[in-house]
């Protein structure tokens, strides 16, 4: 037991003490921020950075050009009485100062076709600006042409946007259930599990291979059991992962608090917002809904189960990675063994996404019971509520399999770490297990 503790401590310190760990731990959140910020920044640059484009509009009907208002991207200039051939001349004469020519034909009311001409590319945003504006304008013109008083108001009144709310009967009474938030939470937990297992599984494998390449392993196993060394690695790297997660959660907490106090989101969750205010502020009403949903989820069982599945899944896959890592001499040879494992993980991940659509469907149920996919898939199902028998069956299966895999991996490991030279095949691994 003492030796196991020593091995865990060494493994932990060897990773946490590395510069790359510190860079990674602090860099990851920055990278995520960057990934989130880049599209926003690009969009901003797109809006602000580019010059306003002149768009010539030839309105043969003479009625609709006025509806196209210039904005900070496009400046619409109405030309009168020109035909298409003239438009070409006009465009050429303008010598590039005009981006495109829009022609609203005389029969637009019946055909609903509008043409945009240009030598350059016509951007989707120009197309959608023109389409949306003319859609509304022409539709309104049609309604007006029917000559029925107040028709416009009547149509607007008739327009509905159904808001479907799901309410769950539970012991605590009626409870607005939380489909969106539940789904989001499920994805988050499933993604965390997936990332963690892959990242730290690879870390364990590298650590095993490194010891083998260093040739230190024979010295170490002459002082402890190979199984102790393997288990020490799995636990040590697991603790590294937990440390990293804890740091991220703290960072997230700090960023969240700072951002919350800056934008006043923090105050949203407290106090009730009167209906008028909600109608007035659509956005904050939406936030309020999300908050309500987030608060309505019963977290305790979810967190407990998450921890269980997390440990089980991590143990299962990390043992697998450790066993497979022991069979190769260098990291570059490992792919023949890791590819199937990563494939299974990917299947689990996509199954998780698919199961979110139908968390009680047969695929979701099976994938959340099969031990290799259950740690990822069950996370998606958890917030929706899972029958107890399925949970129990799934957890028992997961841990039984994890222990079995650990046992098998240990048998491969004790042979693998001393196997040098000729590349081992899957056949060899089976021989070693026997």
């Amino acid at each position, binding site marked *: 037991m*003492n*030796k196991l503790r*020593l*091995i865990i401590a*060494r493994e932990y310190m*060897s990773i946490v003490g*590395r510069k790359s760990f510190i860079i990674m731990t602090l860099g990851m959140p920055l990278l995520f921020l960057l990934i989130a910020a880049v599209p926003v920044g690009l969009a901003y640059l797109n809006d602000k950075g580019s010059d306003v484009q002149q768009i010539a509009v030839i309105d043969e009907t003479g009625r609709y050009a006025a509806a196209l208002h210039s904005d900070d991207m496009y400046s619409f200039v109405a030309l009168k009485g020109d035909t298409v051939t003239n438009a070409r001349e006009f465009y050429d004469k303008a010598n590039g100062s005009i981006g495109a020519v829009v022609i609203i034909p005389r029969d637009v009311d019946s055909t609903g076709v509008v043409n945009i001409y240009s030598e350059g590319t016509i951007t989707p945003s120009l197309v959608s600006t023109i389409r949306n504006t003319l859609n509304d304008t022409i539709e309104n013109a049609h309604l007006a042409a029917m000559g029925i008083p107040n028709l416009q108001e009547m149509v607007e009144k008739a327009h509905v946007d159904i808001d479907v709310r799901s309410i769950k009967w539970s012991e605590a009474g009626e409870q607005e259930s939380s489909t969106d938030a539940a789904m989001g939470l499920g994805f988050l937990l499933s993604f965390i599990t997936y990332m963690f297992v892959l990242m730290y599984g690879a870390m364990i494998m590298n650590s095993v291979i490194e*010891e083998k*390449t*260093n*040739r*230190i392993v*024979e*010295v*170490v*196993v*002459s*002082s*402890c*059991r*190979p199984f102790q060394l393997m288990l020490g690695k799995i636990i040590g790297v697991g603790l590294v992962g937990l440390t990293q997660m804890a740091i991220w959660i703290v960072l997230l907490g700090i960023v969240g608090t700072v951002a919350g106090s800056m934008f006043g989101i923090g105050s949203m969750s407290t106090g009730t917002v009167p209906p008028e205010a909600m109608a007035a502020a659509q956005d904050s009403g939406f936030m309020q809904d999300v908050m309500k949903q987030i608060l309505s989820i019963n977290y305790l069982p979810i967190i407990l189960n998450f921890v269980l599945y997390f440990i089980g899944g991590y143990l299962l896959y990390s043992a697998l990675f450790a066993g497979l890592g022991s069979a190769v001499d260098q990291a570059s040879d490992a792919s023949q063994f890791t590819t199937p494992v990563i494939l299974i993980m990917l299947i689990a991940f996509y199954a998780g996404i698919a199961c979110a659509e139908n968390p009680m469907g047969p695929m979701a149920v099976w994938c959340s019971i099969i031990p290799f996919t259950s740690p990822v898939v069950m996370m998606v199902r958890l917030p929706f509520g899972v029958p107890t028998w399925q949970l129990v069956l799934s957890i028992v299966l997961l841990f039984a399999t994890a222990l079995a895999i650990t046992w098998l991996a240990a048998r491969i490991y*004790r042979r693998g770490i*001393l196997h*040098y030279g000729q590349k081992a095949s899957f056949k060899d691994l089976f*021989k070693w297990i026997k």
Partner: protein
Amino acid sequence: MPYLDINNVVKRYEGHTALDGVSMQVEQGCIYGLLGPNGAGKSTLIRIINRIIAADAGSVTLNGKEMTDDDIAHIGYLPEERGLYKKMKVGDHIVYLGRLKGMTKADAVASMHWWLDRFDLKEWENKKVENLSKGMQQKVQFIGTVIHRPPLLIFDEPFSGFDPVNAEQLKTEILALRDQGSTILFSTHNMASVEEVCQQITLLNHAKVVLTGSVDEVKQHHKKNIIAVQTADTIEPNPELFTILPPDPAKRQGTLIKLDPGVNVRDAISWLNEHYRLTGFTEVLPSMNEIFIETVKSQKTVENNE
């Protein structure tokens, strides 16, 4: 009672037998050479003694008791293929290895300082292993093997990778450990070092013991009745007593004569003394290298004839 008693140990792998009923007795306080060509089973036997792998049959007793996992604290093992954690600091690394063998932290630290001092590595204590030269790393490796002062030391090709100066220092340290009472098991191809330091040897070939005994006994047993004779005049062959062998330019020890079967040394020398101006003579014993090659080769011919 031998300190380390290996009795009829068998180890089979898929497709081949690595050890086929190997027995070996190592007395306390001796330096014991475990010899054999590549693939003879030396490393397998050493790993079994270190309890890295388990024997399929047979027993290994240490100090009269069947070995258990706890006994590995009493062994220091320097494998042939060795290495260190490159990113660890020298001092931490040595202490880690010592503690894995069951030392307390304080003992391990004290012992580490003592050994670093002895090997002039004191200023390297807080440097990372990767910053050390190869020779220094080998010394650190050696310290890691002996830090817990084990009564049984197992060295697999200890001199490989050492330059002559460091090899000499290592030899001195090994002899010093023996003098302090450690028993040393020595696996090597380097026959010169066997003759210098080993008292007993066992030669393994094809998973079996083919030769065992003290170095002197083995040499006596393998002697070829060759005498190096120094005379003032040239010796002619005597068909009734001996033949003359071609001279060995490396040794310059006079004329080599091989006695015919059944002729004893005294008769040959007295005959030579009568007929030539004899100035000296020595019996030539085979080197361990010659015995090694001869034994392994003769086994091969036996196998081929079977």
